[in-house]
Protein backbone atom coordinates (compact mmCIF):
# COMPACT_ATOMS: atom_id res chain seq x y z
CA UNK A 1 0.00 0.00 0.00
CA UNK A 2 1.26 3.44 -0.91
CA UNK A 3 1.45 6.39 1.51
CA UNK A 4 -1.21 9.09 1.18
CA UNK A 5 -0.19 12.18 -0.81
CA UNK A 6 0.45 14.38 2.27
CA UNK A 7 2.67 11.78 3.93
CA UNK A 8 4.55 10.98 0.72
CA UNK A 9 5.16 14.69 0.05
CA UNK A 10 6.55 15.34 3.54
CA UNK A 11 8.79 12.26 3.27
CA UNK A 12 10.14 13.61 -0.03
CA UNK A 13 10.76 17.03 1.54
CA UNK A 14 12.65 15.52 4.51
CA UNK A 15 14.74 13.41 2.13
CA UNK A 16 16.13 16.64 0.62
CA UNK A 17 17.86 17.43 3.94
CA UNK A 18 21.52 16.37 4.33
CA UNK A 19 22.03 12.96 5.94
CA UNK A 20 18.36 11.96 5.72
CA UNK A 21 17.28 8.95 3.67
CA UNK A 22 13.95 7.22 3.11
CA UNK A 23 13.83 5.40 6.48
CA UNK A 24 14.78 8.42 8.59
CA UNK A 25 12.31 10.60 6.67
CA UNK A 26 9.52 8.07 7.34
CA UNK A 27 10.43 7.96 11.03
CA UNK A 28 10.29 11.78 11.29
CA UNK A 29 6.91 11.94 9.53
CA UNK A 30 5.36 9.31 11.83
CA UNK A 31 6.82 11.11 14.84
CA UNK A 32 5.15 14.35 13.71
CA UNK A 33 1.84 12.54 13.16
CA UNK A 34 1.86 11.53 16.83
CA UNK A 35 2.76 15.06 18.02
CA UNK A 36 0.23 17.69 19.20
CA UNK A 37 -0.92 20.17 16.51
CA UNK A 38 0.68 23.13 18.38
CA UNK A 39 4.08 21.46 18.45
CA UNK A 40 3.93 20.81 14.70
CA UNK A 41 2.79 24.37 14.07
CA UNK A 42 5.72 25.63 16.19
CA UNK A 43 8.15 23.64 14.06
CA UNK A 44 6.70 24.88 10.77
CA UNK A 45 6.72 28.51 12.01
CA UNK A 46 10.33 28.15 13.13
CA UNK A 47 11.29 26.93 9.66
CA UNK A 48 9.42 29.77 7.95
CA UNK A 49 10.95 32.37 10.31
CA UNK A 50 14.36 31.09 9.36
CA UNK A 51 13.85 32.22 5.78
CA UNK A 52 11.82 35.35 6.61
CA UNK A 53 13.96 36.86 9.35
CA UNK A 54 17.49 35.53 8.94
CA UNK A 55 19.68 37.42 6.48
CA UNK A 56 23.36 38.05 5.94
CA UNK A 57 25.05 41.05 7.54
CA UNK A 58 25.88 43.71 4.93
CA UNK A 59 29.21 44.38 6.65
CA UNK A 60 30.61 40.98 7.63
CA UNK A 61 28.41 38.47 5.70
CA UNK A 62 27.56 36.52 8.86
CA UNK A 63 24.05 35.20 9.52
CA UNK A 64 21.93 37.64 11.50
CA UNK A 65 18.38 38.84 12.18
CA UNK A 66 19.48 42.50 12.39
CA UNK A 67 21.55 44.27 9.79
CA UNK A 68 24.31 45.11 10.76
CA UNK A 69 24.77 42.09 13.03
CA UNK A 70 25.29 42.25 16.81
CA UNK A 71 29.08 42.07 16.44
CA UNK A 72 29.34 44.80 13.77
CA UNK A 73 26.98 47.16 15.66
CA UNK A 74 28.57 46.60 19.08
CA UNK A 75 30.66 49.70 20.03
CA UNK A 76 32.57 47.66 22.61
CA UNK A 77 34.05 45.41 19.90
CA UNK A 78 37.32 46.44 18.27
CA UNK A 79 36.18 47.28 14.72
CA UNK A 80 39.72 47.90 13.42
CA UNK A 81 40.59 44.21 13.75
CA UNK A 82 38.93 41.71 11.38
CA UNK A 83 38.99 37.95 11.78
CA UNK A 84 38.41 36.27 8.40
CA UNK A 85 36.60 32.91 8.50
CA UNK A 86 35.35 30.59 5.75
CA UNK A 87 31.80 29.84 6.96
CA UNK A 88 29.34 31.34 9.50
CA UNK A 89 29.71 28.30 11.80
CA UNK A 90 33.47 29.08 12.11
CA UNK A 91 32.49 32.49 13.52
CA UNK A 92 30.32 30.83 16.19
CA UNK A 93 33.19 28.48 17.09
CA UNK A 94 35.46 31.50 17.75
CA UNK A 95 32.70 33.31 19.66
CA UNK A 96 32.27 30.26 21.93
CA UNK A 97 35.89 30.76 22.99
CA UNK A 98 34.89 34.17 24.40
CA UNK A 99 38.35 35.76 24.22
CA UNK A 100 38.20 37.50 20.85
CA UNK A 101 36.76 41.02 20.90
CA UNK A 102 37.31 42.16 17.31
CA UNK A 103 35.01 42.02 14.29
CA UNK A 104 34.61 39.36 11.58
CA UNK A 105 34.40 38.81 7.87
CA UNK A 106 32.82 35.61 6.50
CA UNK A 107 34.06 34.58 3.04
CA UNK A 108 31.20 32.11 2.47
CA UNK A 109 33.58 29.51 1.06
CA UNK A 110 37.24 28.95 0.27
CA UNK A 111 39.44 28.84 -2.80
CA UNK A 112 39.51 25.29 -4.15
CA UNK A 113 41.52 24.81 -7.37
CA UNK A 114 40.47 21.15 -7.59
CA UNK A 115 36.79 22.13 -7.54
CA UNK A 116 37.36 25.15 -9.80
CA UNK A 117 36.32 27.61 -7.03
CA UNK A 118 38.41 30.74 -7.48
CA UNK A 119 38.75 34.06 -5.64
CA UNK A 120 35.89 35.50 -7.75
CA UNK A 121 33.47 32.91 -6.37
CA UNK A 122 34.08 33.88 -2.75
CA UNK A 123 33.70 37.41 -1.46
CA UNK A 124 37.31 38.61 -1.21
CA UNK A 125 36.74 41.88 -3.08
CA UNK A 126 34.33 43.11 -0.39
CA UNK A 127 36.93 42.31 2.27
CA UNK A 128 39.53 44.40 0.43
CA UNK A 129 37.04 47.29 0.11
CA UNK A 130 36.29 47.10 3.84
CA UNK A 131 39.99 47.09 4.75
CA UNK A 132 40.52 50.21 2.62
CA UNK A 133 37.37 52.05 3.72
CA UNK A 134 37.44 51.36 7.47
CA UNK A 135 41.20 51.80 7.96
CA UNK A 136 41.61 48.27 9.33
CA UNK A 137 44.78 47.74 11.39
CA UNK A 138 44.94 43.94 11.52
CA UNK A 139 43.43 41.11 9.50
CA UNK A 140 43.50 37.72 11.28
CA UNK A 141 43.18 34.83 8.84
CA UNK A 142 41.28 32.00 10.54
CA UNK A 143 40.80 29.77 7.49
CA UNK A 144 40.91 26.00 7.97
CA UNK A 145 44.39 24.42 8.13
CA UNK A 146 43.84 22.38 4.96
CA UNK A 147 44.80 22.84 1.31
CA UNK A 148 41.78 25.03 0.50
CA UNK A 149 42.25 27.13 3.66
CA UNK A 150 45.95 27.59 2.87
CA UNK A 151 45.18 28.66 -0.72
CA UNK A 152 42.63 31.18 0.56
CA UNK A 153 44.97 32.56 3.23
CA UNK A 154 47.89 32.97 0.82
CA UNK A 155 45.68 34.67 -1.76
CA UNK A 156 44.25 37.14 0.79
CA UNK A 157 47.74 37.85 2.12
CA UNK A 158 49.01 38.53 -1.43
CA UNK A 159 46.05 40.84 -2.09
CA UNK A 160 46.28 42.80 1.18
CA UNK A 161 50.09 43.04 1.32
CA UNK A 162 50.17 46.12 -0.91
CA UNK A 163 47.69 47.96 1.37
CA UNK A 164 50.18 47.95 4.25
CA UNK A 165 47.76 46.30 6.70
CA UNK A 166 49.07 43.82 9.29
CA UNK A 167 48.03 40.29 8.24
CA UNK A 168 48.30 37.41 10.73
CA UNK A 169 47.19 33.77 10.64
CA UNK A 170 45.95 31.72 13.58
CA UNK A 171 48.50 29.16 14.85
CA UNK A 172 48.46 25.58 13.62
CA UNK A 173 49.68 22.70 15.76
CA UNK A 174 48.73 20.00 18.21
CA UNK A 175 45.16 19.87 19.53
CA UNK A 176 44.75 20.00 23.31
CA UNK A 177 44.41 16.50 24.77
CA UNK A 178 46.04 14.76 21.77
CA UNK A 179 49.16 12.60 21.62
CA UNK A 180 52.43 13.80 20.06
CA UNK A 181 53.11 10.19 19.06
CA UNK A 182 50.18 10.14 16.60
CA UNK A 183 50.64 13.65 15.16
CA UNK A 184 51.61 13.92 11.51
CA UNK A 185 54.89 15.52 10.44
CA UNK A 186 53.40 18.79 9.15
CA UNK A 187 51.43 19.33 12.39
CA UNK A 188 54.57 18.80 14.49
CA UNK A 189 56.54 21.13 12.21
CA UNK A 190 53.89 23.86 12.58
CA UNK A 191 53.90 23.33 16.35
CA UNK A 192 57.64 23.90 16.47
CA UNK A 193 57.39 26.96 14.21
CA UNK A 194 54.73 28.41 16.50
CA UNK A 195 56.46 27.60 19.81
CA UNK A 196 56.29 30.25 22.53
CA UNK A 197 58.62 31.25 25.33
CA UNK A 198 57.26 30.23 28.74
Amino acid at each position, binding site marked *: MKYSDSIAKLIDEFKRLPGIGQKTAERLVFFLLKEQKDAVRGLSEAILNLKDKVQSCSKCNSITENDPCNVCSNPKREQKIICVVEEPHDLYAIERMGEYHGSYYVLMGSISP*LEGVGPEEIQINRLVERVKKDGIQEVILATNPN*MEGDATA*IFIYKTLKSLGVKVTRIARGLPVGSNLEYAD*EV*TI*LRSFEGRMEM
Partner: protein
Amino acid sequence: MPLFKTEAIVLQRFNLTESSLIVTSFTRDFGKVKCVVKGARKIKSRYGGRFEPFTCLNIIYSGKEHQNLYILNHCDTIRPFYNLREDYIRLTTGCYFTEIISSFTREAEKNEELFHLFFRALDILESTDNISVLIRIFEMRTIALSGYSPKFDSCLICKNEPKSKYINFHFQSGGIICGKCLNSSSPGRRITLGTLNYLKKVLTINFSSIDRLRFPKGQDKEIALLTQMYLKTIIGRECKSYKFIAKQEL
Protein backbone atom coordinates in the same frame (compact mmCIF):
# COMPACT_ATOMS: atom_id res chain seq x y z
CA MET B 1 39.87 -10.10 3.73
CA PRO B 2 43.18 -9.43 1.89
CA LEU B 3 45.48 -6.57 2.90
CA PHE B 4 47.21 -4.39 0.32
CA LYS B 5 50.39 -2.44 1.02
CA THR B 6 51.70 0.26 -1.30
CA GLU B 7 52.93 3.83 -1.71
CA ALA B 8 50.27 6.40 -2.54
CA ILE B 9 49.94 10.10 -3.35
CA VAL B 10 46.70 11.70 -2.16
CA LEU B 11 44.64 13.18 -4.99
CA GLN B 12 41.41 14.23 -3.34
CA ARG B 13 39.39 13.72 -0.15
CA PHE B 14 35.68 14.09 0.57
CA ASN B 15 33.75 14.13 3.82
CA LEU B 16 31.74 10.93 4.23
CA THR B 17 30.31 11.39 7.72
CA GLU B 18 30.97 13.69 10.68
CA SER B 19 34.13 11.70 11.42
CA SER B 20 35.06 9.79 8.24
CA LEU B 21 36.64 10.66 4.92
CA ILE B 22 36.80 9.10 1.48
CA VAL B 23 40.37 9.49 0.23
CA THR B 24 41.28 9.01 -3.43
CA SER B 25 44.96 8.33 -4.01
CA PHE B 26 47.18 7.26 -6.87
CA THR B 27 49.17 4.23 -5.80
CA ARG B 28 52.38 2.79 -7.17
CA ASP B 29 51.10 -0.79 -7.39
CA PHE B 30 47.30 -0.63 -7.83
CA GLY B 31 46.52 2.55 -9.81
CA LYS B 32 43.86 4.83 -8.40
CA VAL B 33 42.41 3.62 -5.08
CA LYS B 34 39.47 4.96 -3.06
CA CYS B 35 39.49 4.27 0.69
CA VAL B 36 37.20 5.07 3.57
CA VAL B 37 39.20 6.41 6.53
CA LYS B 38 37.21 6.08 9.72
CA GLY B 39 37.78 8.75 12.36
CA ALA B 40 40.05 10.88 10.11
CA ARG B 41 37.98 14.04 10.65
CA LYS B 42 38.14 13.89 14.44
CA ILE B 43 40.36 16.60 15.92
CA LYS B 44 42.34 14.02 17.91
CA SER B 45 42.56 11.57 15.00
CA ARG B 46 45.75 9.50 14.86
CA TYR B 47 45.91 10.27 11.12
CA GLY B 48 46.18 14.05 11.62
CA GLY B 49 46.51 16.00 8.37
CA ARG B 50 47.95 13.13 6.33
CA PHE B 51 45.15 13.13 3.76
CA GLU B 52 45.78 16.54 2.27
CA PRO B 53 46.35 16.49 -1.52
CA PHE B 54 49.98 15.88 -2.66
CA THR B 55 50.93 13.98 0.51
CA CYS B 56 52.91 10.84 -0.30
CA LEU B 57 52.09 7.97 2.08
CA ASN B 58 52.81 4.35 2.79
CA ILE B 59 49.33 2.84 3.11
CA ILE B 60 47.84 -0.48 4.13
CA TYR B 61 44.22 -1.04 3.14
CA SER B 62 41.83 -3.95 3.04
CA GLY B 63 38.88 -5.11 0.98
CA LYS B 64 37.96 -7.52 -1.76
CA GLU B 65 40.03 -7.21 -4.92
CA HIS B 66 38.63 -4.96 -7.70
CA GLN B 67 35.95 -3.41 -5.51
CA ASN B 68 35.36 0.35 -5.63
CA LEU B 69 35.83 1.27 -1.99
CA TYR B 70 38.38 -0.10 0.46
CA ILE B 71 39.01 0.47 4.18
CA LEU B 72 42.26 2.19 5.11
CA ASN B 73 43.93 0.42 8.03
CA HIS B 74 47.24 2.21 8.42
CA CYS B 75 49.33 5.01 6.93
CA ASP B 76 52.73 6.67 7.38
CA THR B 77 53.98 9.80 5.68
CA ILE B 78 56.81 9.45 3.16
CA ARG B 79 56.84 13.09 1.92
CA PRO B 80 54.22 15.67 2.91
CA PHE B 81 55.28 18.19 0.17
CA TYR B 82 54.16 20.91 2.58
CA ASN B 83 56.23 23.61 0.85
CA LEU B 84 53.73 23.48 -1.99
CA ARG B 85 51.10 24.83 0.42
CA GLU B 86 53.21 27.89 1.28
CA ASP B 87 53.10 29.49 -2.16
CA TYR B 88 49.98 30.20 -4.25
CA ILE B 89 51.58 29.43 -7.65
CA ARG B 90 53.10 26.13 -6.44
CA LEU B 91 49.87 25.14 -4.69
CA THR B 92 47.69 25.76 -7.75
CA THR B 93 50.24 24.02 -10.01
CA GLY B 94 50.25 21.01 -7.64
CA CYS B 95 46.44 20.95 -7.86
CA TYR B 96 46.68 21.02 -11.66
CA PHE B 97 49.10 18.03 -11.63
CA THR B 98 46.74 16.23 -9.27
CA GLU B 99 43.75 16.85 -11.53
CA ILE B 100 45.66 15.63 -14.60
CA ILE B 101 46.69 12.42 -12.80
CA SER B 102 43.13 11.92 -11.60
CA SER B 103 41.83 12.30 -15.17
CA PHE B 104 44.35 9.92 -16.73
CA THR B 105 44.20 7.08 -14.19
CA ARG B 106 41.66 4.43 -13.34
CA GLU B 107 41.04 2.06 -10.46
CA ALA B 108 43.17 -1.10 -10.49
CA GLU B 109 45.29 0.07 -13.46
CA LYS B 110 48.91 0.07 -12.39
CA ASN B 111 51.20 2.66 -14.00
CA GLU B 112 54.42 2.74 -11.99
CA GLU B 113 56.22 5.08 -14.39
CA LEU B 114 53.40 7.62 -14.09
CA PHE B 115 53.58 7.33 -10.29
CA HIS B 116 57.31 8.12 -10.37
CA LEU B 117 56.72 11.04 -12.76
CA PHE B 118 54.07 12.47 -10.40
CA PHE B 119 56.33 12.10 -7.34
CA ARG B 120 59.33 13.63 -9.16
CA ALA B 121 57.24 16.52 -10.52
CA LEU B 122 55.94 17.38 -7.01
CA ASP B 123 59.51 17.10 -5.67
CA ILE B 124 60.85 19.56 -8.28
CA LEU B 125 57.83 21.86 -7.92
CA GLU B 126 58.82 22.47 -4.29
CA SER B 127 62.07 24.16 -5.33
CA THR B 128 62.19 25.15 -9.02
CA ASP B 129 61.54 28.64 -10.37
CA ASN B 130 61.06 27.29 -13.88
CA ILE B 131 57.44 26.29 -13.21
CA SER B 132 56.08 26.92 -16.73
CA VAL B 133 58.59 24.45 -18.24
CA LEU B 134 57.84 21.92 -15.49
CA ILE B 135 54.12 22.16 -16.31
CA ARG B 136 54.74 21.48 -20.02
CA ILE B 137 57.05 18.54 -19.22
CA PHE B 138 54.50 17.08 -16.83
CA GLU B 139 51.61 17.48 -19.28
CA MET B 140 53.44 15.91 -22.24
CA ARG B 141 55.01 13.07 -20.26
CA THR B 142 51.71 12.18 -18.59
CA ILE B 143 50.10 12.06 -22.03
CA ALA B 144 52.96 9.87 -23.32
CA LEU B 145 52.96 7.51 -20.32
CA SER B 146 49.20 7.08 -20.58
CA GLY B 147 49.48 5.69 -24.10
CA TYR B 148 48.86 8.84 -26.16
CA SER B 149 52.48 9.60 -27.03
CA PRO B 150 52.54 12.16 -29.86
CA LYS B 151 54.44 11.29 -33.06
CA PHE B 152 56.73 14.20 -33.82
CA ASP B 153 59.33 12.50 -36.04
CA SER B 154 57.45 11.90 -39.28
CA CYS B 155 54.50 13.29 -41.22
CA LEU B 156 51.22 11.39 -40.86
CA ILE B 157 50.70 11.48 -44.67
CA CYS B 158 54.12 11.19 -46.43
CA LYS B 159 55.98 9.58 -43.46
CA ASN B 160 58.99 11.86 -44.08
CA GLU B 161 60.78 13.95 -41.48
CA PRO B 162 59.33 17.51 -41.51
CA LYS B 163 61.75 20.19 -42.75
CA SER B 164 59.50 23.13 -43.68
CA LYS B 165 59.03 26.15 -41.39
CA TYR B 166 55.37 25.44 -40.64
CA ILE B 167 53.61 22.17 -39.84
CA ASN B 168 50.21 21.16 -38.48
CA PHE B 169 49.67 19.21 -35.28
CA HIS B 170 46.64 16.94 -35.59
CA PHE B 171 45.12 16.44 -32.12
CA GLN B 172 42.87 13.44 -32.86
CA SER B 173 45.70 11.31 -34.24
CA GLY B 174 48.45 12.88 -32.11
CA GLY B 175 50.76 13.45 -35.08
CA ILE B 176 52.05 16.09 -37.46
CA ILE B 177 51.40 16.99 -41.11
CA CYS B 178 54.49 18.44 -42.83
CA GLY B 179 54.60 21.62 -44.95
CA LYS B 180 54.65 19.69 -48.24
CA CYS B 181 51.43 17.80 -47.44
CA LEU B 182 49.69 20.82 -45.89
CA ASN B 183 46.81 22.55 -47.63
CA SER B 184 44.18 25.05 -46.54
CA SER B 185 41.80 22.29 -45.43
CA SER B 186 44.41 20.35 -43.38
CA PRO B 187 43.10 19.57 -39.89
CA GLY B 188 44.84 20.55 -36.64
CA ARG B 189 46.80 23.58 -35.47
CA ARG B 190 49.64 25.26 -37.33
CA ILE B 191 52.94 25.44 -35.40
CA THR B 192 56.52 26.36 -36.29
CA LEU B 193 59.36 23.88 -36.62
CA GLY B 194 60.99 25.65 -33.63
CA THR B 195 57.97 24.85 -31.43
CA LEU B 196 58.10 21.23 -32.61
CA ASN B 197 61.76 21.00 -31.59
CA TYR B 198 60.92 22.34 -28.11
CA LEU B 199 58.10 19.82 -27.79
CA LYS B 200 60.56 17.03 -28.63
CA LYS B 201 62.91 18.35 -25.94
CA VAL B 202 60.06 18.44 -23.40
CA LEU B 203 59.50 14.72 -23.98
CA THR B 204 63.14 13.74 -23.58
CA ILE B 205 64.84 16.21 -21.21
CA ASN B 206 66.11 14.92 -17.89
CA PHE B 207 64.24 16.35 -14.89
CA SER B 208 67.53 17.38 -13.27
CA SER B 209 68.29 19.68 -16.27
CA ILE B 210 64.93 21.44 -16.12
CA ASP B 211 66.39 24.77 -15.00
CA ARG B 212 68.48 24.91 -18.20
CA LEU B 213 65.47 24.78 -20.54
CA ARG B 214 63.74 28.10 -21.27
CA PHE B 215 61.12 28.68 -23.95
CA PRO B 216 61.63 31.82 -26.09
CA LYS B 217 59.01 34.57 -25.60
CA GLY B 218 56.00 33.94 -27.80
CA GLN B 219 56.84 30.27 -28.28
CA ASP B 220 55.98 29.54 -24.61
CA LYS B 221 52.36 30.59 -25.24
CA GLU B 222 52.18 28.51 -28.43
CA ILE B 223 53.52 25.43 -26.61
CA ALA B 224 51.11 25.97 -23.68
CA LEU B 225 48.14 26.33 -26.02
CA LEU B 226 49.10 23.24 -27.99
CA THR B 227 49.56 21.00 -24.92
CA GLN B 228 46.31 22.32 -23.46
CA MET B 229 44.37 21.56 -26.65
CA TYR B 230 45.91 18.10 -26.88
CA LEU B 231 45.04 17.38 -23.22
CA LYS B 232 41.49 18.60 -23.78
CA THR B 233 41.14 16.33 -26.83
CA ILE B 234 42.23 13.29 -24.82
CA ILE B 235 40.33 13.83 -21.56
CA GLY B 236 37.34 15.46 -23.24
CA ARG B 237 37.15 18.50 -20.98
CA GLU B 238 39.20 21.40 -19.65
CA CYS B 239 40.96 20.95 -16.29
CA LYS B 240 39.17 23.04 -13.63
CA SER B 241 42.45 24.05 -11.99
CA TYR B 242 44.14 25.25 -15.20
CA LYS B 243 42.40 28.64 -15.06
CA PHE B 244 44.30 29.35 -11.80
CA ILE B 245 47.65 28.81 -13.54
CA ALA B 246 46.70 30.59 -16.78
CA LYS B 247 46.00 33.80 -14.83
CA GLN B 248 49.43 33.92 -13.25
CA GLU B 249 52.78 35.12 -14.53
CA LEU B 250 55.01 32.06 -14.28
